[in-house]
């Protein structure tokens, strides 16, 4: 009798305490909230309006995703270096944070198909005499720490063997340093470059040309093992393009020629 009670008790505890086999997609639908990591220091992808509300391409993208899932969106501000800790500690569900889909990073997090593509532009201090990407050789250059362009530029400076590379923590600091003349030039996404030059916050700088880096495809990301969610996100990105919403958002926040999200000659 005693053993029976014990066995039933044990069984009951196992059933009650074993977590339901729900994956992240279920969790999001169940909780009614989609928490997105968005970088709000990266206009026009993410920034804040005069009332301190988050705005930008990535913010709209997260809202669209939440709408598709039938939940409410919660924008969690994460600077570039904090995107992954935010995901791993469970503060966010998905990163909509202009994250370059490098193979090195894909060993740690799960990347979707590209949802946006950046071209790289060189912005220079007018007094530096930098007129093109090649002119940056031997100069002091900088970029936002942890970004695709920072990694590429640092590598380039090492290859040149002269000059200095400085990573700053935020995009705003890079342009502040550039405008003060602490650095001579920076490489950033062309959208960021245009947006910062036009903003009038930083004087004495101009976009001087393109940087010959590969096109920077950026993906949404979530935990590597959440295939169900990644699968959903891939379809969502596909639908955004198919329904013309991608073009609409691009026109709203960036404008100009719509970048293609597919690579010619290969799947995915």
């Amino acid at each position, binding site marked *: 009798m005693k053993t029976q009670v014990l066995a039933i008790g044990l069984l009951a505890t196992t059933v009650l305490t074993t977590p339901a086999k729900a994956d992240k997609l279920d969790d999001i639908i169940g909780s009614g909230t989609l928490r997105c990591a968005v970088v709000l220091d990266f206009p026009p992808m993410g920034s804040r309006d005069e009332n301190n509300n988050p705005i930008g391409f990535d913010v709209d993208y997260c809202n669209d995703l939440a709408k598709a899932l039938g939940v409410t969106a919660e924008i969690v501000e994460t600077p*570039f*270096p904090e995107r*992954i*800790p935010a995901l*791993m*500690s*469970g503060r966010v569900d998905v990163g909509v944070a202009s994250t370059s889909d*490098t193979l*090195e*990073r894909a*060993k*740690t*997090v799960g990347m979707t198909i590209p949802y946006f593509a950046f071209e790289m532009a060189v912005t220079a201090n007018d007094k530096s005499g930098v007129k093109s990407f090649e002119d940056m050789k031997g100069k002091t250059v*900088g970029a936002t*720490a*942890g*970004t695709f362009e*920072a*990694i590429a530029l*640092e590598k380039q400076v090492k290859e040149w063997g002269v000059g*200095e*590379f*400085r*990573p*700053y*923590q935020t995009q705003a*600091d890079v342009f*502040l*340093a550039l405008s*003060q*003349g*602490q*650095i001579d030039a920076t490489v950033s996404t062309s959208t960021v470059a245009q947006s910062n030059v036009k903003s009038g916050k930083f004087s004495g700088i101009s976009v001087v040309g393109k940087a010959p880096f590969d096109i920077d495809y950026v993906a949404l990301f979530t*935990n590597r*093992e959440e295939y169900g969610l990644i699968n959903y996100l891939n379809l969502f990105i596909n639908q955004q393009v198919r329904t013309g919403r991608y073009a609409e958002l691009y026109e709203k926040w960036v404008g100009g020629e719509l970048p293609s999200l597919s690579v010619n000659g290969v799947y995915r």
Partner: protein
Amino acid sequence: MFSYTFQWKQALKALPQMLDGALVTLQIALLSMAIGLVIAIILTLFRMSGNRILSGFATAWVEIARNTPALFQIYMAHFGLGSFGIHLSPFTSLLVGIVFNNAGYLAENFRGALKAIPDTQTRAGRSLGMSSLQAFRLIVMPQMLRIAFLPVTNQMVWAILMTSLGVTVGMNTDLTGVTQDLNARSFRTFEFFAIAAVIYYVIAKAVTLAARAFASRMFRY
């Protein structure tokens, strides 16, 4: 819920790079302490001088250094001076920021130590025929150094930890800079930061233990 698989093998491959960064960190900390100590002694003398301008200057320095965040001080050394056209490299900005902070705290340590030595000792020395400088050098100074020694080592540990703020001014060769860089490449945040934390701990602990050993030899009664 924390869902993360640690990959130590991959992270530990970067250990030599991180140790190089630790050397830079130690270098900045030592340099900032050496310069900070000299400035702190000068500030202490200024405050004792009785000259209003000199002591006012020293007091202002100590007040600002002790009552504003180190992050702010380092940021000002880079972007603050930068807006006046004075451009310091990340290394120099970081060094200047920490030296400023160190000097302020150390001057305060020295003042506290001086206060702990009774005036009567100086008077006794003077009455034995010492000049005021001799009394200070032979009686006050040795005791002051003994009292201030442990607070000074505290500041050394603090200086080591403060170097991690260099990333805000574009520093990428010190331990935190290297760690951030590795993290951005691979997103292996937790491994790299854990390794960095251990290295910081070891350095700080080593400094404390060395200082204690040194003190027990030097300051024996």
